[in-house]
């Protein structure tokens, strides 16, 4: 079969000219409105009192600026055929590894909260390479895994190269040090490896090795084992490592079902650390109550649903892996952030995508959603509205038939 026998509508889908997933855009829009509101509410106290920031709206203005840049990035990337990234995945990976090295190795790293995650380059705003590493690694792995095919199940051709690449990136991110991001990166990559069709025995063995590595990491670094002790019993050191946990629990509890009202959080008055970044979900819980927190969870669950839906309809394995990787990463990061705030897992610093304050995180999340939206424009099985009544059959009926079709079409 060749392309010219296909309907025009199908060709549009295949070439990425279908409509993007408007539902997904709607979800992001709601999260953004909520996020900008909450960032302002959670940050004005710090912004007002600190001589560093001059203005109550310091964080609000910057967040809106980043949202603006992010939206433009998303709209542009939505138009770019995702297949074009295939060529740049290897150079992209090299650049990101270099940047991660630079942060660790040089004095350019500007440290915050005892970590060296930011990179300042001249007059440009400081960036956080570990945030960019998430997207670049997903692009790289999607390309690599989609080209491996059946060789993936092979130990020396599949599992070992994958483990080396993953070990390198997570190792560098860990050295920033940024355990939260490293964890998100590792889990998203493993998700991709699993979806791409990894050998189950290797996969389980890798999972065990990863768990052991995680336990080792947690036990070797003093601050990490303290966080685990604080997770198990925050009252042991209520003014030290237990502080975060106790204050975020109090924020959630005092919000109750209906919340204290927009802007009425009391925990943001220096009680809750990182109120406008990592702990923003606790402020949502305090101001908007259980109704607000459940709504946020619902939005992320919908985002995951729409993301996987786009994955299932993607026309080729690169698109599928890309969409699955991006969806898994954003969802997983949101889950981890909320799990930390609700004391379901030990504390680790990670942002809530599209809600927390943070330029790098916002920009990267938007870029990822832009790519995901472009994948959603390449749906298989799409029948335009005007043709439906004429009994037109979808060009390709099932997902399974797709790979066969694509190999012939190329």
């Amino acid at each position: 079969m060749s392309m010219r026998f296909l309907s025009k509508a199908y060709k549009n889908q295949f070439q990425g000219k279908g409509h993007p997933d408007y539902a997904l855009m709607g979800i992001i829009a709601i999260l953004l409105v909520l996020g900008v509101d909450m960032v302002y509410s959670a940050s004005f106290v710090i912004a007002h009192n600190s001589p560093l920031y001059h203005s109550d709206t310091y964080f609000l203005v910057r967040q809106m600026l980043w949202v603006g840049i992010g939206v433009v990035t998303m709209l542009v990337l939505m138009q770019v055929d995702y297949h074009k990234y295939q060529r740049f995945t290897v150079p992209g990976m090299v650049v990101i590894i270099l940047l991660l090295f630079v942060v660790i190795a040089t004095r350019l790293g500007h440290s915050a909260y005892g970590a060296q995650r930011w990179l300042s380059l001249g007059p440009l705003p400081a960036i956080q390479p570990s945030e960019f590493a998430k997207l670049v690694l997903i692009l790289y792995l999607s390309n690599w895994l989609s080209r491996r095919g059946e060789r993936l199940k092979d130990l020396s051709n599949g599992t070992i190269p994958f483990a080396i690449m993953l070990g390198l990136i997570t190792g560098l991110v860990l050295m920033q040090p940024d355990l939260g991001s490293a964890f998100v990166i590792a889990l998203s990559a493993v998700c991709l490896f699993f979806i791409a069709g990894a050998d189950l025995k290797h996969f389980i063995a890798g999972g065990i090795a990863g768990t052991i590595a995680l336990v080792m990491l947690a036990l070797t670094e003093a601050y990490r084992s303290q966080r685990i002790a604080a997770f198990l019993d925050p009252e042991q050191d209520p003014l030290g490592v237990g502080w975060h946990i106790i204050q975020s629990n109090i924020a959630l509890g005092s919000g109750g079902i209906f919340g204290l009202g927009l802007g009425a959080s009391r925990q943001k008055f220096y009680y809750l650390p990182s109120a406008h970044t990592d702990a923003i979900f606790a402020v949502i819980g305090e101001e908007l109550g259980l109704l607000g927190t459940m709504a946020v969870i619902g939005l992320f669950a919908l985002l995951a649903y729409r993301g996987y839906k786009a994955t299932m309809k993607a026309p080729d394995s690169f698109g599928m892996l890309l969409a699955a990787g991006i969806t898994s990463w954003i969802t997983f990061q949101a889950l981890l952030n909320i799990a930390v705030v609700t004391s379901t897992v030990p504390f680790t610093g990670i942002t809530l995508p599209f809600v927390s304050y943070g330029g790098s995180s916002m920009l990267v999340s938007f870029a990822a959603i832009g790519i995901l939206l472009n994948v959603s424009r390449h749906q298989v099985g799409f029948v335009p509205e005007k043709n439906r009544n004429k009994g037109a059959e979808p060009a390709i009926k099932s997902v399974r038939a797709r790979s066969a079709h694509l190999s012939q079409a190329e």
Partner: protein
Amino acid sequence: MSQSIYRTGLALLIGFVIIALALPYWQVIRANDLVGDPRYNRYRLNEIENSSERGRILDRNGVVLASTEMTPNGARRTYSMPALAHVTGFHSAIFGDSDIEKAFAPYLQGQEGADPFKAMFDRLLHRPTVGSDVVLTIDSKLQAVAEEAMGSSKGAAVVIQPKTGEILALVSHPYFDPNTMEKDWDKLKNDPGTPMVNRATQGLYVPGSTFKTVILAAALDSGVTNPDEIFDFKMETDSYGRAYHLESFNGYEIYCANHGMTSPGRAQLRLADVFAQSCNIAFARLGVRLGSQRLIEYAKRFGFETQIPLEIPDLPSQLSLKPGFLNDNAAVAATSFGQGQLQASPLQLAMVAATIARGGIAPQPFLVSEIRTGKYSTTVGQPKQWHEVVSPTTAREVADMMVHAVDTGWAKGAQVSGVRVAGKTGTAEILPGETPHGWFIGFAPEDDPQVAVAVIKEYAGPGSTEAVPVGKAIIQAALGK
């Protein structure tokens, strides 16, 4: 590939379910402890004061007892009946809240109310909240009568509707004026008359002969005596010409002249008469027959040694100060006529009267009947039985003997024409040379109880002349006689 995508999605779904369960845990189940955490002291009083109009406190007939006016200098709380200071409590930005103002603060401030959606929208939209009104069971007219009858004496009076447990009046003398409390704080705190202490619920006094009501009920209920028992005494005459009887309990000699006798010789009195005449020896005998174990058990059933559930702070009444005190028969004898190491609150003794009036079942006392938010109202307190104390037969026999005490005994002064009043006086000895506390407990009408009272006047003299008139005035006012 699609199958593994389903699996990944399923794994993430499990993650969503776990956090969706964690949230109600913190935000609903644990919410109250977290807000109650002493480290959570984030309420900025001024913010709440200025954004809400505090609700009123009303009596059972809608009389406003406490209300807030907005003045240019901020909100001002006024109390129309300072004599109820120990019920309403005070509301102060400096000293905090007390009593009903404290216990019902979330309602008065409008954080909680009869209309849950209103509070939610007010909070969400930052509208000034209007606090809910708290309606008390107190009858301000009856309170005023009790107040006047107490005069300037120190002491307390508790008035309960025995069928429901509603507290109709609660007098504690002296009291403070909550309108000027902030200004007078230092003076009030150092006042030797302790006007800040709520004597009605937290004052612990020797109950004297009013405790014989507890012993009588216990002795009848456990079968160690019966209403037909005749008590035998050999009377002698002392140097003043009074007929008396002396009897020793494990080396503790009790002198008693309360037999209504004037000449020496053999005296025979019925159970109802020893109660009406308040004979210490007869009750010491009953107490020893009961034994310490049963005495303690019955007293506890009446509420001794436990905190009576109430919206404002109260103290448990005590049977002994030292553990093991009642192991000795001498101590049992002394306790049985209301001395020993007994310590009882006026609320506790009003509960004894109310329990007998209610046929042996203690009602649960309460002060707040409902919360009103706009046109909505929620019932907060309603008639409930606290627990069973003695059988209905026993309660009826005790009630008859309390009527006998008013008809023929020391409580004669409580007679009200046309009403069967039941009562018992008490004269509690403190230290030799000190004027005793005067007590009265009672209820009326005996056949359809509407009111139960306990009155104490501190260091005032015998109950029959000091406390009985106050009790009578309260009963008359409550019954509209």
